[in-house]
């Protein structure tokens, strides 16, 4: 599992930041994205529920010549403190996995993405971990 820090901890204005493309000669089995978020221990990170982060991923199955459409694989959600069963969640974790049984789209061999902030600015970081 290789973790890549795509966005170092810092303050980011409204707008879009792109990353990649990254090429995977043996195909990509899956990955997760982790975004630092607000806790009582550090209320400065992604503080506001009105600050929305959108992650858009694009996958290529032909080595990066063409990609899936922007918006076809994405996530968006608000900031602020989130608890689960009484426990604060320090990172939003998002996963995408690929299907090795699929005859045509088993594993992408290139990935690129973009992160869009609205209602910011936002202080956070973003890591990608490849399977």
């Amino acid at each position: 599992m290789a973790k890549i820090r795509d966005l170092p901890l810092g303050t980011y204005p409204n707008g879009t930041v792109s990353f990649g493309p990254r090429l995977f000669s043996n195909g990509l089995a899956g990955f997760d994205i982790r975004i630092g978020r607000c806790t009582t221990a550090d209320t400065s990170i992604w503080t506001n529920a009105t600050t929305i982060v959108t992650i858009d991923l694009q996958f290529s199955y032909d080595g990066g010549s063409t990609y899936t459409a922007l918006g076809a694989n994405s996530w968006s959600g608000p900031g602020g403190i989130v608890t689960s069963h009484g426990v604060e969640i320090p990172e939003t974790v998002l996963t995408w996995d690929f299907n090795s049984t699929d005859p045509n789209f088993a594993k992408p061999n290139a990935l690129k993405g973009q992160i869009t902030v609205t209602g910011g600015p936002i202080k956070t970081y973003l890591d990608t971990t490849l399977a």
Partner: protein
Amino acid sequence: MAFRSSAITSSNTGGNLTATPSGVAAHDYLLGWFTRDGNHGAPTYPSGWTQRGANTDTTPDGQDCYSFDKDDATGSDSFTVTDGNTNQSALITSAYSGRNNAAPRSATPVVTSNTSSNTSPISATYTGITAVAGDDIAILIMTDQVAADGRWNASTITNYTQQRDGVAIDWVSGFGLQTRDNVGGGATGNFAVTWTRTTGTGNAGYRGVVHAIASSGGGGGGTTVKQLAALGAG
């Protein structure tokens, strides 16, 4: 013509999830499967999609799940499930070619619910469905785990293909899709799945929805009949 492709994504803080199967074409049949920890009601489905199967049991831990579908894809369809909750959630979407876009459900989707706190490995039984010859069968499955860190995976149902199996997210890890193309008509019988907690702690209940997806020919051999007709036979 049959199962085409699927996509899966998940989040530990809810939000809006989009996962688009690759290669979707006009007139595919589209099927979605969504789960979320806790009991908070249905999310908002994309335009043109309709909820079919639902379970909102509150035990052993409480976890909602919903199947939803779109009869006739345009080829540029939305696969975004909009959800204002921040609980752990997961989404599987899938596409099927050569289906009956006017009447794609051969039977009402069948919901299975088990609300016990079962110890791993769980010998789960999912209630079958009455199929029409030529149907594709999609079995949408999930666990309701009672501890955050459990990671649950399913065995493959005999004669089925495990398209998706599990997500690495707390509380909603057991989540999958298994399919079989072009079945014979009649009752499928029940489906046996063994759920195994591969890491972590705790027990789980389980739920699922079974869909029988009709062939465009209206039954087994329908496509062949159409082809013969096109050749001037019959």
